[in-house]
């Protein structure tokens, strides 16, 4: 049986809720068992990837360094909704890791290809 395609879908900003951080924890844990993972950043979820955040100022731990581990854990399918970036006037250069940009149509196609989705 082929390995299941599992995707984590992030729709919330970095802080204000722990969804982003706990999604990333789950992603790394799953990555040690599954090589067919994808991660999506849609809507406010893209704020998680913006450089130079200072969460200590609001008593939160900066989890952004963990994004750098995705490469090491062989998580290659990192997708960002292009429309969400544009609407927020954010450019790809503002993001801390290399991502693949997807149009709304491509996004739907990629999501439809997954066997399992975990939404955060």
């Amino acid at each position: 049986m082929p390995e299941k395609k599992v995707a984590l879908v992030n729709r919330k900003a970095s802080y204000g809720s722990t969804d982003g951080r706990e999604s990333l924890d789950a992603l790394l844990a799953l990555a040690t068992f599954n090589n067919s993972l994808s991660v999506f950043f849609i809507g406010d979820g893209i704020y998680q990837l913006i450089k130079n955040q200072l969460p200590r100022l609001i008593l939160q731990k900066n989890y952004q360094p963990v994004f750098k581990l995705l490469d090491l854990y062989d998580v290659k399918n990192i997708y960002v909704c292009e429309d969400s970036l544009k609407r927020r006037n954010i450019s790809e250069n503002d993001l801390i890791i290399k991502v693949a940009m997807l149009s709304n149509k491509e996004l739907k196609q990629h999501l439809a290809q997954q066997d399992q989705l975990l939404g955060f």
Partner: protein
Amino acid sequence: MQINKTKFTLVIMGPPYGSQSASSAFQFCKEAVENGHHIVGVFFYQHGVLNGNQLVSPTTDETNLPQHWAALAHKYKFPLEVCISAALRRGVVDQSEAQQLALTQFNLTTPFVLSGLGQLAELSAQCDRLVTF
């Protein structure tokens, strides 16, 4: 009539009170097992770990979700796995963790068990369908 049995894994991210997530999950779970489907396991993550808190004490005319989960899992013999890292951050602790951390109390009792996120990968691999709440 023969029904096609499905192996389900449920992932619960919502607390037992305050959002509909866990209540919907419980109703889904109950219907599934009572109709002959198989629950591979229920994984509690994020605020979902609070479903394992046995100190939850709603008024008697309201639903006590932790007790309901425990009874259903006991009856149909499926595991209730609580993510340990999410649980400890939210004050959900079993007896052995309480001892290790020198805490005077614990609030997780059987059949809930603390387990790691690796178990989520295991449950994800074993099921036909994974449903998140």
